[in-house]
């Protein structure tokens, strides 16, 4: 049975009741049994039992999973189909390697800070020279390649290693993640401003690398471990009280998944756990640890605001109240709850590139919910969600803006909003 032996217990517990049909978002858009949690589980089980040789259709089935985790909650028997999909991808990687030149390249690029920097530079150039001069070439498979912001300079190159203040009560590290680094520098600045404002000295280690989630998600534990060890070693040397993340995906990776990544290295595990113990999501840290004084928030111009729960924040990390509480504390901000706020935005990392029909259908549903809510601003805590939703809004010609929670809070502290 190979690598799937570890999860066979869980595979066996699927009773095929089909209740996951109601929760699985990829099923809602595709309506095919191989694209629903139950179907994936049964196919993985067939592979585990030697009744199915992984082929292209099998790979499509398990690679089209959004890993949004809704199935895990809905399953009455506690089968976590998302975890089984991860195990299946790991198994595939070990058996056949990562298939698809585009995917392999993408993963390689994300794993290397140098290559990633070059990739974003090339995108900027390509846009200036080609895309912006051709009408109608707005999107690649539903991804707004024209509109997605790219920083002039990576954020990590814009700021000092330590942003200090007088008499800091705490010293924290900021793990930015690739997206804030390359596309949302103002968000990075906002995070530092807010933390400084609340008594934190902020260390932003310049040598930080990709959290490893993309590689991990496609079963490449080897590269993911290399990246993880780099980050862990780097931050361990900083002697900080906490490691702050403002990207839901990175946060879920470095806090929840790193221990699983190193489950087979029991000697290294204690260091991992010490690291993970310090990781804290930005909004949770502000409210629960720093207990920020929300009366310090200044009023903003009245606007209707809603919040989109990133999959990686609501389900593995279970952080939903803190962002909302912070938003509702901003004077003159009218908070409206949208329908299915925790429904996947459709990005799911590389799924949006390889399964555009599915992703676009899911994003369309998110846009509909935003429209129905009446909100003008959508706040979220994940740069990937942010770009996905904003890109879709742009392409649909809609006016709503998607803003990171940190930027919203910076505004509430009276700092000018970015351009």
């Amino acid at each position, binding site marked *: 049975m190979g690598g799937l032996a570890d999860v066979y217990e869980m595979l066996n517990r699927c009773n*095929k009741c089909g209740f996951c049909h109601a929760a699985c978002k990829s099923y809602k858009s595709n309506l*095919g049994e191989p694209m629903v949690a139950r179907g994936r589980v049964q196919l993985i089980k*067939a592979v585990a039992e030697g009744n199915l040789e992984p082929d292209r259709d099998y790979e499509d089935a398990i690679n089209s999973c959004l890993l949004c985790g809704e199935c895990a909650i809905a399953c009455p028997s506690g089968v976590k189909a998302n975890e089984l999909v991860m195990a299946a991808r790991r198994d595939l990687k070990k058996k056949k390697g990562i298939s698809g030149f585009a995917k392999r390249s993408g993963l390689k690029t994300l794993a290397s800070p140098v290559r990633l920097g070059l990739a974003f530079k090339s995108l900027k150039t390509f846009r200036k020279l080609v895309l912006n001069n051709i009408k109608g070439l707005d999107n690649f498979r539903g991804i707004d390649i024209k509109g997605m912001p790219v920083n002039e300079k990576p954020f990590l190159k814009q700021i000092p290693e330590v942003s200090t203040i007088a008499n800091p009560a705490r010293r924290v590290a900021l793990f930015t993640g690739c997206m804030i680094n390359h596309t949302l520098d103002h968000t990075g600045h906002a995070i530092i401003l807010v933390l400084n404002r609340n008594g934190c000295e902020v260390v932003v280690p310049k040598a930080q690398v990709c959290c490893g989630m993309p590689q991990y998600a496609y079963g490449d534990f080897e590269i993911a471990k290399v990246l993880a060890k780099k980050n862990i070693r780097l931050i361990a040397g900083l002697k900080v009280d906490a490691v702050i993340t403002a990207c839901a995906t990175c946060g879920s990776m470095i806090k929840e998944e790193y221990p699983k990544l190193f489950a087979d290295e029991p000697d290294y595990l204690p260091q991992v756990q010490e690291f993970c113990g310090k990781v804290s999501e930005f909004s949770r840290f502000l409210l629960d640890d720093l207990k920020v004084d929300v009366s310090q928030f200044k009023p903003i111009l009245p606007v209707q605001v809603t919040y989109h729960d990133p999959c990686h924040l609501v389900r593995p990390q279970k952080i939903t109240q803190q962002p909302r509480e912070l938003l509702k504390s901003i004077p003159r901000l009218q908070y409206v709850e949208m329908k299915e706020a925790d429904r996947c935005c459709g990005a799911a990392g590389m799924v949006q590139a390889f399964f555009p029909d599915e992703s676009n259908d899911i994003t369309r549903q998110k846009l509909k919910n935003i429209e129905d809510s009446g909100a003008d601003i959508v706040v979220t805590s994940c740069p990937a969600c942010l770009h996905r939703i904003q890109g879709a809004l742009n392409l649909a010609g809609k006016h709503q803006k998607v803003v990171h929670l940190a930027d919203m809070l910076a505004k509430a502290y009276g700092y000018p909003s970015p351009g």
Partner: protein
Amino acid sequence: MLAKTIVNRLERIVGDKNVITSKVALIAYGYDATLLAGMPVGVVFPANTEEVVELVKAANELDFTLVPRGAGTNLSGGALGDVNSTSVVVAFSRMKKIWEIDTENFLATIEPGYVNFEFQEELGKKGFYYPPDPASYKAATMGGNLGECSGGPRCFKYGVTRDYVLGLEVVLMNGKVIQTGGRNFKSECGLDLTRIFVGAEGTLGFITKITVRILPLPPAKRTMLAIFHKAEDASRTVADIVAAGIVPTTLEMMDGLMMIIAEDANNIGLPRDAGALLIIEVDGYAVDLDGQVSTISEICSKNNVREFKIARTAQEVDKIWLARRTAIGACGKRRPSYSMQDITVPRSVFPEAVSGIIQCASDLNLEIGILAHAGDGNFHPMVLFDQRLEDESHRVHAAEGILCQMALDLKGSITGEHGIGLLKKPFMDKQFSPVGLEVFRKIKRSFDPANRLNPGKIIDL
């Protein structure tokens, strides 16, 4: 392997994208919610009635069999490919349109692939609902409900699927389309053709449109929880409630073992030493409910109820229902596999059925938790096991036979909601005489003499 000529023909009918023959698809469409399997040789996804007609013609001309499928949550093997592996599964997931929801005239017309739960949500927006809501309603389709004549917890008061179907559009196996019934109760032509399709488990014709009765949501509802020291007390309570002339909307029972299983899994505050619990609901005009609630309360007291709660808020209602809603999941957490049985007995022998199930569990050394729609004598014994253990699986199979025989000995039925499909076929000759079985064959012959539609389900020709 599906012949190229057939694949080509299918692709011409529904489009390339909507014919799949990959190994992955055949595996995915070769199971349902039972332990049985039956791989088809192809799967097609028609978009409308016309395509279904062409599929039937193709099946007749090129001689292959067809199996209709909704969401595949079937509990009797009804949607599996036939044993000779010549079946093309006709999946209705693309046919899920709402043709109309007419609240003024208490009806709606929908396509078979529409999920029951989504239908309820849509109706809820207009203050209406569709009473038959089986436990699987979040995934199961209206077409599937029709094929099995699904029930749900509300049956005692509100009836089952057959009571709510006003008319159908059906594609017959000769390729012709008929409308049965209509938009009111008085549209059947001669014989009640609508009724023969309900519960026919997809063996008499392809349902392509369903017109159902819908009702306004009841103005008020009251939810109660009663926990008893002994299961017999709960059974007597059910009988007494009925004798008092009350027709509750819901009368769900969980036995002591089921409560332990639920409590072990989820820590919701259920006692681990009780005999049974009842969830009782009455609905209607608010002014009529107080009287019923106090009568029920008195009856429970009379029968030595150990704990009796009346929900006062929506949260309290949810809390009462939590035990029942998490019951199946609790089984899944305790042992990897569960077999959800389905038998019915007359209400008067409810206590004997409870004892019988407990006896069966003891005799076969299996854990069987009891869930029941107590008002209609419909039991869902939950047999827990691990499907990887051959010996245990054999005992589960034996339990099925014993429980069906017990139901028949108590003058009940081998299936109340899940249907015969493949699973209960071996017991058909125990519930029906040769004359009865021949009646069923006459019906099948009338509609599908060539036996190309879902052959081998319910009965063999």
